[in-house]
């Protein structure tokens, strides 16, 4: 992966994989409510994919200079195993951790690339993932940590 297009193709593929992952977990979920939530997550990933496709087509620009709030909630939570009776708390932890891993991947890649358009794109992708992580962390803060 040395070109911007290759990186974007990789990122688009990652978003599709994430969407497929949530659809797969949704199929296994026992309750209708959780199915719906997981399918919503899947739709969220598809919307990320569309944004990246627009970036590739030159219709949208990534903004690497933007600061994104990091609540650091997922950093200290234990890993969750995917099961048929997955709870909303579990689903959010999985989502937060996936977004965090993606953020770290692009950040590490950007750190290894000399200043260039490619570096900017990688930094932009990292920012996008940080935004997604914030979305799920804010949701966790609101709905799971209600009394805390």
């Amino acid at each position, binding site marked *: 992966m040395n070109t911007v297009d290759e990186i974007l193709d990789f990122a688009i593929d990652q978003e599709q994989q994430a969407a497929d992952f949530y659809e797969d977990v949704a199929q296994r979920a*026992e*309750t*209708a*409510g959780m199915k*719906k*939530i997981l399918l919503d997550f899947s739709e969220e990933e598809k919307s990320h994919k569309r944004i990246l496709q627009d970036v590739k087509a030159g219709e949208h620009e990534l903004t690497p200079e933007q600061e994104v*709030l*990091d*609540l*650091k909630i997922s*950093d*200290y*939570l*234990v890993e*969750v195993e995917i099961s048929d009776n997955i*709870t*909303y*708390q579990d689903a959010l*932890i999985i989502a937060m951790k996936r977004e965090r891993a993606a953020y770290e991947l692009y950040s590490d890649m950007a750190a290894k690339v000399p200043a260039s358009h490619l570096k900017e794109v990688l930094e932009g992708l990292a920012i996008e993932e940080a935004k997604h992580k914030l979305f799920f962390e*804010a949701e966790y*803060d*609101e*709905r*799971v*940590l*209600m*009394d*805390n």
Partner: protein
Amino acid sequence: MNLKDLLSPFFVWQRAFEKPYTTMRPIQDRPGAAAYRGFHINIAETCIGCGSCHTICQNEAIDMVAVEEFAGRPGDSGLRPRFDYGRCCWCALCVDICTASSLRMSNEYTWLTRDPTDYHFTAGVDETSWQENELGYRRAEGYRLFPEKRVEMEMLPADESVNSFEEVVKGYSEEQAKKEADRCVECGICVATCPAHMDVPDYIHSIRDGDYEKGLQLMYRTNPFPATCGRICTRRCETVCPVGIDGEPVAIRWLKRFIVDQFEAKDYQRILDETITDNGKKVAIIGAGPGGMSAAYYLRKKGYAVTVYESQQTAGGMLRYGVPSYRLPDDDLDKDIDYIVSLGVEVKYNTRIGEDIKFEQLLKDYDSVFMSTGLSVPSNMRIHGEDHPRVLSGLQVLADVANGRDPGIGKKVAVIGGGNVAMDAARVSRRYGAEVTILYRRRISEMPADEEEIHESQEEGCIIVQKAIPVELVNAESQQQVSIRWGEAEMVDDPKGGRPRPVLQEDRMHTETYDSIISAIGQGSNLDYISKEMHEQLEIEWGKFTPGEYQHTMLEKIFVGGDFANRTADAISAIEDGHHAARGIDRYLNPAAYIETEQQVD
């Protein structure tokens, strides 16, 4: 007639060409005095439409009229005062009583119009030239027609309360209750805000009249848990009480308690005098908490044979096992529950649906089922080390205490959380002699616990550490202890406009060792008794039901209510859910009665 008289009309004519003494405008603009009681000004945005002005007006010169732009505002009736200047005598009593201090008078006193209906006007809504007038009558600073401070409630001193489970709040005497009842302006805004829509002004009025039996009867119309709610209600009514705008709200909760405290449980049958005619239909209720027992009461009154299935050995749900007796003594909870049971409600204790009886069996055996099993499963923090044996759940600690078991917390305890369960777990721990530290991620002002509970926990010696985020639990040197690593937080504004969010500061971490860590960060529902197929058909989002009208689910026989079916998760909302579901079940099982009634209304 002499000659002078005969000629005098002609002499008058000589005046016709002189400059007249009268002026074209007989009344010169002369401003009223600075504190003149002239035409009314109302700051309609500040006004909440309590109608105190209307009530106090001796000339019946004020009507309350609906103003569309204020309709539906929380704590606002949506009405505004409309003045009739054919009746007003400018006594200014309306200004003196105004709870929101929105009403005043200008020093304007002349108003000429050809249309007499103009003299009916809604101040602050209809355009007038004096609305912005700086001068005119204002209520003097500090002058009120009712005391701004509520009658103080006698409480057990903190140094005594921390050593016992005796009830902390002593209750009003008759003299105190009447004095406090006199502060109520009977506006009824509280009625709209109370989830159960209790008839607050009228039962407070019954205290003024000394007719406590009537007060009890009024309360049972909408709430069969008055002894309980008189002690632990979240009292949203008081948050909108207009007397609280410039002073302290009327102590509605304590007045409710006062009425109930006037009677022994044995008096209830005589006072409430409820005749029940069986209608031959059967309803099963799962869960004997406030939601389930409220539904049981109102269904039984309509003649249904009601059976309540309860997994515990006593009824009350979270009121029994989650609220300690220093806030709600068992005897008072029993007063409410025993009366409901005395009407012929059958309660099957120690019976768990899904284990002892299948849910599907209930659906076969009964005409309808009301589910109200609440939020009984403590949420996990999901941080490393949470499975340490010295990490306890707040709910379990409270349940142990309710069952008379020593919760085994040790002498140095940290409680994680900021809700009522956290506060109660902390206060219970103090009563077992522990030093207690409460760690909370946000600030005290953002704690979901009742403000009074937070204050009382501090009075009893609990230390609240704000903006403290637990990140890990680790083994301590002694197996009887556990260490917690927590970090300080900075509050950061949410860019999307939500409440400020705590952000962990990794350079400010702390480690402390305790005998127990009590986790009380929230609760979830346990719906294991429902089959997968049924889950698919019931509307459940974020672990909570989203029932339709009258608490009805998508499955025709099933109704739901209580903490797992509403957003507020408090007793009064559960009670209303139960009442509402009872109406829904009756409509479902007895539709003909409602069709006839609705046709009559039409």
